[in-house]
């Protein structure tokens, strides 16, 4: 059940009405309803993987309790590693087994040994990387005594499986979400309207921007040999907008949907393409994953407290792991490595936290220096996305080779003017709304209502006219 489908729309209306019809005092009933709805939502993808989700939930629930109850450090450790091992084991089998088996076989072949490896013919359970990370953070936090284990199984299961975040995040923390699940939720008209507004903007990003960019980007990426350099650059730029529209659109719908049920999820995007350097980009892109790696990998590795080499090593580790988290393919690892490479200069000069605020915060336009910074950061991310989008390393290298030659300065053979105009409108709205949590958050202050609603109707009209074939969300494959 995709967020951008009519089925989800009907599902949401039904659950919403039942949810708020249940008295606020009956928190247990509300949570049970959300859990059932979440499992139904997940079963719509593939009911067989629901067992895996339930198993993973129970595993972390029980190990969490056991870690807390253990009086001896050794038994704490056993329960902790049992949970970590099984969670990562599932992820390893479903997501990484074939990658390692193939590469191991290739390595042996290269030294003259012939081996026949058995590859698994399995489908990756949707959302496994996301709900595994929910569970991992919960167990690690209990082990480190940052939080108490949740006693109520429904509350914990809902924390892992809450349908807006189940299949593609944001990756929540128990410290943030569990207290909300346990507290009574009041119907708040302003929050509901805000949730609907964020859903509308998410739909616009996904349906209009991402899906339409996808059509052109797919066409160009499928046969890069057929196009000149400028067309290939355009293809990479379209993919850059596609992935942003797709994933941040999904996150907006997830956040808006959760808000309709009185729950605030972690912010996942903060206008990443308005970043002045790569470090800033990573503070604004997939924030919940970046902060997860920071808290559970970067800091335990020593973070930035050590010397320069340690900081460089740690930066490379988290970016390579982050790349690998996205998929079992060398393209993702190179993508992560490139981002690390681009961030290293600022790590060495300790200027990676230079740009913490909003660009041109009190001005309408950026100054020349900021403009150059914005454009160069954007182009670096465009370059990195080529690896992310490519089917293989050779595909990416071929793409870049064909792009970076004289034909880069010729006119592109594909120039979808309506789409470019839409992108201009989109970037304009995002720029004007960059001080908010999402681009159209502050539309709320527009008076009279007629003007405000006219804007919503305009967005809806564009969605109506430009609705594309309804591609699935890119991040569902992770």
């Amino acid at each position, binding site marked *: 059940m995709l967020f951008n489908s*009519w089925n989800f729309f009907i599902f949401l209306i039904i659950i919403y009405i039942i949810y*708020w019809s249940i008295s606020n005092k009956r928190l247990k009933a509300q949570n049970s309803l959300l859990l059932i709805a979440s499992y139904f939502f997940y079963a719509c993808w593939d009911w067989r993987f629901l067992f895996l989700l339930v198993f993973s939930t129970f595993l972390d629930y029980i190990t969490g309790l056991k870690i807390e109850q253990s009086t001896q450090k050794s038994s704490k450790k056993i329960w902790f590693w049992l949970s970590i091992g099984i969670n990562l084991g599932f992820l390893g089998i479903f997501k990484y087994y074939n990658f390692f088996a193939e590469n191991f076989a290739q390595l042996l072949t290269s030294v003259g040994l012939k081996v026949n490896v058995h590859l698994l013919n399995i489908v990756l359970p949707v959302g496994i990387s996301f709900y595994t990370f929910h569970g991992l953070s919960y167990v690690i936090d209990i082990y480190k005594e940052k939080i108490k284990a949740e006693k109520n199984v429904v509350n914990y299961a809902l924390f892992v499986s809450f349908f807006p975040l189940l299949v593609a995040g944001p990756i929540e923390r128990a410290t943030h979400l569990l207290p909300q699940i346990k507290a009574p939720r009041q119907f708040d*008209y302003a929050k509901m*309207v805000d949730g609907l507004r964020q859903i509308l903007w998410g739909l616009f990003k996904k349906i209009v921007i991402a899906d339409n960019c996808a059509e052109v980007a797919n066409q160009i990426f499928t046969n890069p040999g057929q196009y000149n350099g400028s067309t290939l650059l355009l293809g990479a730029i379209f993919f850059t907008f596609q992935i942003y529209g797709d994933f941040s659109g999904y996150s907006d719908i997830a956040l808006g949907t959760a808000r309709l049920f009185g729950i605030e999820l972690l912010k996942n995007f903060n206008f990443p393409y308005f970043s002045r350097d790569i470090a800033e980009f990573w503070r604004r892109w997939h924030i919940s994953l970046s902060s997860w790696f920071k808290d559970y990998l970067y800091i335990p590795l020593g973070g930035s407290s050590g010397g320069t080499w340690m900081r460089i090593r740690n930066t490379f580790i988290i970016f390579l792991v982050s790349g690998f988290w996205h998929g079992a393919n060398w393209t993702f690892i190179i993508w992560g490595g490139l981002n690390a490479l681009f961030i290293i200069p600022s790590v060495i000069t300790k200027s990676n936290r230079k740009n913490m605020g909003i660009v041109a915060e009190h001005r309408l336009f950026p100054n020349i220096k900021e403009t150059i910074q914005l454009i160069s950061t954007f182009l670096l991310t465009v370059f990195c996305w080529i690896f992310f989008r490519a089917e293989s390393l050779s595909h990416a290298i071929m793409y870049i080779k064909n792009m970076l030659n004289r034909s880069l300065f010729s006119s592109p053979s594909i120039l979808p003017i309506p789409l470019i105009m839409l992108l201009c409108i989109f970037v304009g709205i995002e720029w004007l709304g960059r001080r908010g949590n999402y681009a159209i958050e502050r539309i709320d202050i527009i008076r009279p209502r007629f003007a405000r*609603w006219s804007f919503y*109707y305009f967005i809806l009209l564009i969605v*109506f*006219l*430009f*609705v594309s074939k309804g591609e699935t969300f890119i991040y569902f494959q992770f």
Partner: protein
Amino acid sequence: MKKLFKQLALFIVPILIFLWGLDYLVYRYLKNTGDIFGNVAPQYDLYEGRIHEPIVILGSSRAEVHIDPNVIKKGTGLDCYNLGWSGAESDLLMYRFREYCKYNPLPRLLVINLDMTTFSAHQVARIIRDEQLPFNLYNFEAYHFYDKNILYYLIPGIRYSEKRYLIYQTLLVYMKHQQLESKRYHGFISSNSPWDDTELRKVLQSGPNNVIIDSSAVKSFYNNLKSLQEKNVQVMLYYAPEHKSGFPVYKNREEVLALYQQIAGQLQIPFINYAQGDITLHEKYYYNVNHLNKTGADIFSHMILTDILRLFKDKLPFRK
């Protein structure tokens, strides 16, 4: 919550008005767009009950571009309408016929074109064609054949989402008070495109196919024909000409043709295979392996006219 629902209801009213307006606009003015969106004129004729011709041709594009009703009319003295529709096979073919019967009187003679894949169990994915869209609101039977989103059949206008070009063209003819002429004559349209066998070569490269017959589709077709006979409708089946280079596409070609012969035999109706003889030999009669061009269609229309006159001379009031 009441306030939210009240506001939402208020918000939705203009949207519904817009959607109703759009639905009306397209329904009212799509007919003025000529042939831009394909088989538009015959769709309107069908759904607005204007097909009163005693001879009706039914089938796929191999009927639509092959039989000229004008030739049939001149030869028999009876009006003829070509209801051929690209991709209309098996259950869709019968669905189209049911729709025709719902809004129009039954013909005296129904000439049905059968293709190799008419009863194939593996039907090609059906794309909802623009000309069908105006007639799908509350048309729940269409749901089985087209878009599987029930809301498209319930809520006006939303099925036109993404149809920017269609909305634009309809708006254009509305604003300019235009009435673009259709080049079709009673559903028939011919093509003068040059010979192109690119698709055929692709198909042949991937090796010959086997048509897997869907027996339930055959049975349903058989029952439909039988009920037509009971209503005194004369029926004729035929297999349209095709260029001989396309013969190897289906391994069980002869088997499929024998099945058509068998259906006709059981119902005691004629079945004629026109994919033989001189017309299959020359590319000059075709624009691709399955479709005759203008010249070929003219020759074939006269061929089928001769057979209609011969087979039904005692049953239909042909002009002497």
